[in-house]
């Protein structure tokens, strides 16, 4: 994937990029314990591979590609990528959509009489968003370039979040860890039964 063209002073962005990488490396052993592995760091890109450590055998859940072009004049771009190839996942292939609980909500069923008490259900909304299954999704979160570039979020400017470190490498990894890798507690298995013959109850003389 080609990096975006740089319009801010590249030395400033490079220095801030180096700070992000150095900040990560300072606590790299701690992050490794949490299943975060720094795979690549060459300006302006960082790739971190995140593992699910709560499952046995542990698994590489996703790679995360950050593009710090123009940082921090602009926020970083964030994509979930295949940890082996580095290619961004299409929405339908995402290993996790970063589901976030929206709390209990009333179940709605059309056509039922008004006032009928229905059970509540736990709602959830994915932080990874796309328009179609084949599209490359983006992390819909303040501090992420794709979020601030989206016309639907023009009222929530990057400048409102820059000072709080919303675009910092570790902060974004924390969000992906919280909603993506940490909640994974096991494997979903699909077993397919196939008839391969008969069992014989007896063998007559």
């Amino acid at each position, binding site marked *: 994937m080609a990096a975006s063209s740089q319009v801010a002073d590249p030395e400033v962005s490079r220095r801030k990029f180096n700070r992000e990488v150095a900040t990560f490396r300072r606590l790299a052993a701690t992050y490794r314990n949490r299943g975060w592995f720094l795979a690549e760091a060459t300006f302006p890109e960082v790739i971190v591979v995140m593992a699910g450590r709560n499952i046995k055998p542990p698994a590489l859940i996703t790679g995360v590609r950050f593009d710090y072009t123009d940082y921090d004049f602009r926020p970083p771009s964030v994509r979930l990528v295949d940890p082996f190839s580095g290619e961004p996942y299409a929405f339908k292939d995402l290993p996790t959509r970063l589901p976030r609980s929206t709390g209990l909500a009333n179940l709605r069923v059309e056509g039922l009489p008004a006032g009928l008490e229905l059970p509540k259900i736990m709602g959830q909304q994915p932080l990874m968003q796309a328009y179609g299954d084949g599209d490359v999704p983006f992390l819909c979160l303040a501090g992420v370039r794709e979020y601030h570039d989206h016309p639907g979020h023009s009222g929530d400017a990057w400048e409102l979040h820059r000072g*709080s*470190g919303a675009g910092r490498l570790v902060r974004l990894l924390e969000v992906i860890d919280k909603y993506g890798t940490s909640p994974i507690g096991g494997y979903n298995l699909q077993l397919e039964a196939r008839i391969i013959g008969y069992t014989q109850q007896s063998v007559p003389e």
Partner: protein
Amino acid sequence: MPDPHIDLAIVVNGQPTTVRANLEAPLRTVIEKALAQTKTTGQPPENWELNYGGNILDLSAKIETFGFPPGATLFLNLKAGIGGSL
């Protein structure tokens, strides 16, 4: 009389700092100190969460109730806030 304070290592968006805290105080009191020490601005303390050992901590609980061992490292992270919709 034992020292009623504890030094907590707090990592703010990846940036480590050490905060001296009163064991009798609620945990939320360390947030403002950690943000100030790392010069992190722009979001009020209630928009942050503390993670220890993979668990989000109750900020209203007294610090001593957590029984943090020496050298415990807490992670102070900006909450996800709004998001998740197009």
